[in-house]
C-alpha cells in the first residue's frame, strides 16, 4: 500500500490530537475544597448535569484573562427562574471565582466575565433555580501561562 507524504502527515497529526485530549482526563478528581464549595451552593443536593452551558476556551494562552460565559436554560418568569450561579475553578489556590445573582428582571440567565486560572484545570458552574433544582456543568481549560502571580 502506498501512502503519500500528505496522508502520512495527516495521520500523524490525528494521532497527536488523540493522545493530547486523552491524557489530561486522567488526573481530574475534585479536591475536598472544591467538593465543599459545590455542596455549599447545592445545599446537600446532588447537582444534575443539565441545562447549564459553560463556554470557555479549550486552550487559554494567558491565565490572567480567560473569558467565560455561563448560560442556563430557564424560562426566567416570576415562578421559575435561576437565582444563583456560582463559578468555581478546581485548581486555583481558592476555588471560588464569582457568584451571579439573577432575578426575573434579568430576562435571561446568561453572564460573561474574565477570570484568572493558575494552571490547567476544570472550571465548574453550579446553578440554583427558584424551584430548588440544582444544575451544573464543567469544562477543562488548558492554561499555557498561569495567572495567579508568584
Amino acid at each position: 500500500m502506498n501512502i503519500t507524504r500528505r496522508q502520512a502527515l495527516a495521520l500523524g497529526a490525528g494521532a497527536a490530537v488523540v493522545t493530547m485530549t486523552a491524557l489530561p482526563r486522567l488526573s481530574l478528581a475534585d479536591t475536598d475544597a472544591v467538593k465543599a464549595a459545590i455542596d455549599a451552593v447545592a445545599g446537600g443536593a446532588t447537582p444534575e448535569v443539565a441545562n447549564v452551558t459553560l463556554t470557555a476556551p479549550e486552550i487559554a494562552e494567558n491565565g490572567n484573562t480567560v473569558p467565560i460565559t455561563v448560560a442556563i436554560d430557564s424560562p426566567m418568569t416570576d415562578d421559575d427562574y435561576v437565582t444563583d450561579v456560582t463559578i468555581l475553578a478546581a485548581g486555583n489556590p481558592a476555588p471560588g471565582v464569582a457568584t451571579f445573582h439573577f432575578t426575573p428582571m434579568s430576562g435571561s440567565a446568561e453572564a460573561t466575565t474574565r477570570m484568572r486560572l493558575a494552571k490547567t484545570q476544570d472550571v465548574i458552574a453550579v446553578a440554583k433555580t427558584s424551584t430548588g433544582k440544582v444544575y451544573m456543568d464543567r469544562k477543562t481549560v488548558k492554561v499555557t501561562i498561569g495567572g495567579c502571580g508568584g
Partner: protein
Amino acid sequence: MAKSKPRVKVPKSADKDEVITIKTLISHKMESGQRKDKEGNPIPRQIINKFTCEFNGKPVFSCDLEPAISANPYLEFSARVPESGVFTFTWVDDDGSVYSKESKIKVN
C-alpha cells in the same frame, strides 16, 4: 493607583419587555492577595468584591467577585426592560469605596 473608572454600555432605546445586553467594565487592579513583593512580603488583597445592577430601584443582576476575577473586571449580562427608566450600576471595593454609574433607557 489611579481612580477606578467605570464604563457601561447600554442601548439608548428598546422595545417594551425586550431583553437587552449590558456590558460593564471598571478599571481596577484586582490585587489577589496571592502575590508577593520583591522582599517576599505578601501584597494585601484589594479587589472589587460586589457588583450590582438595579433598574428604577429594583434589583436586576448582582455578582459577588472573588480574587480569581481578572484585573479590570468585565461583566456582561442581560436585562428585561418593562418601561423607560434608569439603570444604576454600583461596584464595591474591599477598601470601602463605592463606584457607581447611571444609564438611561427609553422604551419605544
